[in-house]
């Protein structure tokens, strides 16, 4: 049975479905304050005194190096930096009692004045002793330049506010220890990154840790890495020699997971009167949160480097900052820096079109890169003009332009292909078992793995078991994020299959399916790849706004370069799901805080997640320019969260005549003036 069918039938086995005799349930007493000293803790089972590890970041965007003063302590070490930070742990034989115990932990605090706004943080005292500045990243990209005094300048302060990743299944782990080996079952995007992180945090030899990915109910970037709670669960399993389960509640997810976006950009776009872009200046400020261990050390650079969009940008000078605030660490969320960068440049381009009274798509054509080049900000921008010309036709822009409030987005998606990926194919008893370094967490990796094995080896789909990540079955692996699996993971599967084919040819003179299925074969391939690939995309969105300022998204169309489309159904599903998230980000999703750093959003009903009645009609067309990889595919998983907020913001601008510079767009901002 296909994985997706199994999940839809309710036959999935998620981490919370795991039951073991003697299992302990873990719970966390969390900070009530955004910033405070801890004076006293009583009634807890575990505190920093005993569990004094730190979490070093892993997963997408991880930087090298060990713990620093800013590393996230597993349990709070004398101070707290955000509401929801784990302070102490309790456990019990059942979940109900564990939750009672959380309520019985008493923590005495000395509250300090919270630092909430990232721009204010730059002017405030350093958050921690021994830290020089609240800017943990402050780097320049490009080169200072002097704009032509006759150039037009479009200046904007653009904001993508923080949002929770909100997978249906929150974070969760089960850990067990037999005296030598720690086994972990986890909801994750990467079994190997969890293994690596645990090994570092617990200072254990990697071969004493096995990490198994169970069915994972959505992740969106959040589940690429290790979390403090996981380290405590493993520590407790080893201490008590009993299995330990921790399942995040939705409230904990909203307070204390790793929310995405949270970026401000102050930018100036320079252009000639004929529309030719001449330069870009300004800064990008990431709201990092209180500790490292998320993606804040990486995301400002990644955003700044992409700010040329898919255009020819001759000059640029951008400062990239990441700033400490009293919030949970920022983390990757579907696109992880890509949607922010494209939102910023695309909003500026729409602004320039209005200033010049030009058609915004016409202006995009003028500036689309005619040749592949490396932008002054550092990323290679592929030639994009021909793609844009076909996008305009395929999306029927001219037709919509006449009749609708239409927004158009032009994007470049940088795939996280660098680092490559692994696969292992084992043939025994006439069946093929396949393990891969990245795995489905809402996609359908199993489908394309089977398609490719049919092509490579002629083996029918029902003889293939595409298994979940397991570090004991696969010596190394990376993970499923950054629109990479259809590119590097599929290529690892292809190369491993070809290796088996070669062996069979060597042994039997030629390859036959019978020889494959009758034999015992086992091939592991780490498909090495160092280059960051990219693909182009475009979105067209139409929307109306009623007399109450309510937005009705009508149509949401995509035109993406997917290279070879390995699984059209999955690609369509990725498009619809990503578009829903893109609409949610634009219209309603936000993790808001008050001036004391107290979260205003503590329930899923207030988190602004789109309900089904607000979902429009979707359409997707594929541009098929094959990638240089063995699979010839290009990832598109993050394209809709990049393109849809851009196109929808523009459609709303057209509908209301109001300048859109922030996501989500506040409903009160869109409320038209009263007529009476």
């Amino acid at each position, binding site marked *: 049975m296909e994985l997706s069918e199994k999940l839809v039938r309710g036959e999935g086995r998620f981490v919370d479905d795991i039951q073991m005799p003697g299992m302990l349930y873990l719970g966390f007493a969390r900070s009530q304050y955004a910033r405070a000293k801890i004076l006293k803790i009583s009634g807890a089972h575990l505190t920093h005194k005993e569990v004094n590890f730190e979490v070093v970041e892993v997963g997408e965007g991880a930087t090298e190096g060990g713990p620093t003063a800013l590393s996230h302590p597993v349990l709070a070490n004398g101070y707290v930096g955000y509401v929801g930070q784990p302070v102490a742990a309790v456990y019990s034989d059942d*979940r*109900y009692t564990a*939750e*009672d115990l959380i*309520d019985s932990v008493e923590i005495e605090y000395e509250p300090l004045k919270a630092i909430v706004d990232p721009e204010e943080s730059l002017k405030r005292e350093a958050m921690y002793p021994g830290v020089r500045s609240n800017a943990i990243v402050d780097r320049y990209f490009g080169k200072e330049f002097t704009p032509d005094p006759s150039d037009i300048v479009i200046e904007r302060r653009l904001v993508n506010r923080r949002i929770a990743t909100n997978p249906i299944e929150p974070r969760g782990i089960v850990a067990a220890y037999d005296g030598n080996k720690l086994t972990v079952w986890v909801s994750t995007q990467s079994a190997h990154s969890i293994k690596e992180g645990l090994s570092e945090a617990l200072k254990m030899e990697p071969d004493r840790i096995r990490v198994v990915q169970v069915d994972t109910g959505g992740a969106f970037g959040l589940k690429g890495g290790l979390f403090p709670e996981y380290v405590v669960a493993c520590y407790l399993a080893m201490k008590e020699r009993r299995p330990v389960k921790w399942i995040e*509640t939705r*409230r904990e997810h909203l307070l204390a997971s790793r929310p995405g976006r949270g970026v401000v950009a102050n930018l100036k776009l320079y252009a000639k009167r004929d529309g030719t872009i001449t330069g870009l200046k300004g800064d990008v400020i990431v709201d990092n949160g209180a500790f490292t261990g998320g993606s804040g050390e990486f995301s400002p650079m990644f955003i700044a480097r992409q700010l040329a969009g898919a255009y020819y940008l001759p000059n640029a000078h951008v400062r990239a900052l990441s700033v400490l605030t009293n919030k949970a660490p920022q983390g990757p969320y579907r696109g992880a820096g890509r949607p922010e960068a494209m939102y910023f440049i695309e909003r500026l381009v729409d602004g320039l079109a209005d200033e010049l009274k030009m058609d915004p798509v016409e202006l995009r054509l003028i500036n689309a890169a005619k040749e592949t080049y490396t932008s002054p900000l550092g990323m290679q921008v592929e030639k994009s003009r021909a793609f844009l010309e076909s996008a305009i036709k395929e999306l029927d822009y001219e037709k919509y332009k006449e009749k609708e409030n239409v927004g158009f987005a032009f994007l470049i998606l940088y795939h996280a292909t660098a680092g490559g990926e692994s696969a292992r194919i084992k043939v025994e008893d006439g069946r093929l078992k396949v393990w891969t370094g990245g795995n489905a967490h809402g996609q359908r990796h199993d489908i394309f793995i089977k398609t490719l094995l049919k092509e490579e080896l002629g083996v029918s789909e029902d003889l293939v078991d595409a298994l979940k990540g397991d570090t004991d079955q696969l010596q190394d692996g990376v993970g499923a994020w950054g629109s990479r699996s259809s590119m590097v993971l599929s290529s690892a599967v292809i190369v491993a299959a070809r290796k088996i084919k070669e062996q069979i040819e060597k042994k039997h003179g030629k390859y036959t399916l019978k020889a494959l299925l009758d034999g015992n074969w086992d091939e592991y391939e780490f498909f090495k790849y160092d280059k960051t690939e990219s693909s182009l995309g475009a979105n067209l969105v139409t929307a109306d706004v009623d*007399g*109450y300022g309510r937005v009705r998204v009508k149509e949401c169309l995509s035109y993406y370069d997917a290279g070879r489309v390995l699984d059209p159904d999955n690609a369509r599903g990725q498009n619809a799901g990503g578009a829903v998230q893109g609409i949610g980000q634009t219209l*309603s999703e936000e993790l*808001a805080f008050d001036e004391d750093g107290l979260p*205003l*959003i503590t*329930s899923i*009903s*207030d988190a*602004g997640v*789109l*309900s*089904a*009645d*607000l979902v429009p009609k979707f359409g997707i067309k594929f541009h098929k320019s094959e990638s240089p990889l063995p699979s010839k595919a290009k990832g598109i998983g993050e394209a809709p969260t990049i393109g849809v907020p851009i196109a929808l913001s523009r459609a709303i601008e057209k509908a209301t005549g109001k300048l859109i510079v922030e996501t989500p767009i*506040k*409903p*009160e901002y869109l*409320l038209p003036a*009263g007529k*009476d």
Partner: protein
Amino acid sequence: MNPPTFEYFAPTGIDEVIDILAKYPGEAKILAGGQSIIPLLKSRISSIPYLVSLSEVKGLSYIDEGSEGVRIGAMTIDSDLENSDLVKKRFPILHDATEQLADPLVRNVGTIGGNLSHADPANDLPAVMIALGARFTLRGKGGSREVEAKDFFLDTFTTALEPEEVLTEINIPFWGKKSGGAYVKFKKNTWNFSVAAVAVQLELDGNRCRKAHIATTSVSPKSGRMEKAEKALIGAELNDHAISKAAAEVATSSEPVSDSYGPEEYKREILRRITREAINKALSRAGGN
């Protein structure tokens, strides 16, 4: 999350229910459809040591037409009200409200009695019952008593129910021939509470307004009659001027607070606009313009 420990009772008779309530005064609460109480328990916002379920008590779910009005059993689920032709014909305002109440999953389990007894100012039915001039039957140790909807809601989550009393029936009187009502709700998405909502019930005398009841949802600590706004309508010809005046009165006399649903002034403005919409809709249903 999981609730703290509680003791659960599911008696089969209403007297038994009242006995249990009387045995644990203030500590026992009625469980009807559970659409408010279960989330409160699960999120550990509330702790209730004794839960008394009405699920096994027979005869509390009905919509009966009498000569004076319609009687509704407290355990009648919201979707039964939504799908009732009687409700749709006689009290379109209640149909408006039940059709927009949360989502179908909630409506299939949530009850009218629970919605009212919980007295959440963001619940839809308090304002509707106040606008309709409904009377509630409260059963207690010494028998039953009747309370008018407008006197039932004392404060946020606080009603005229004594600790050992249960709301058993809602009695909605018929209005005059030229009458009509409407409930207009403004919400951001399907499942959420409203930013603001308003219930308007009118009765006409020729082209003048004889009787008007207006009550709001989500914009005050409790739902109550908006008497100043009603006065702007009563005796008046319901033209644009009168309607605007009443709508402005509703907006001014409401008490919204800034929160994640929007700033105070935004809520007032939404309320003003939906009140205009609701009065116009009620007027047209009453056979006015």
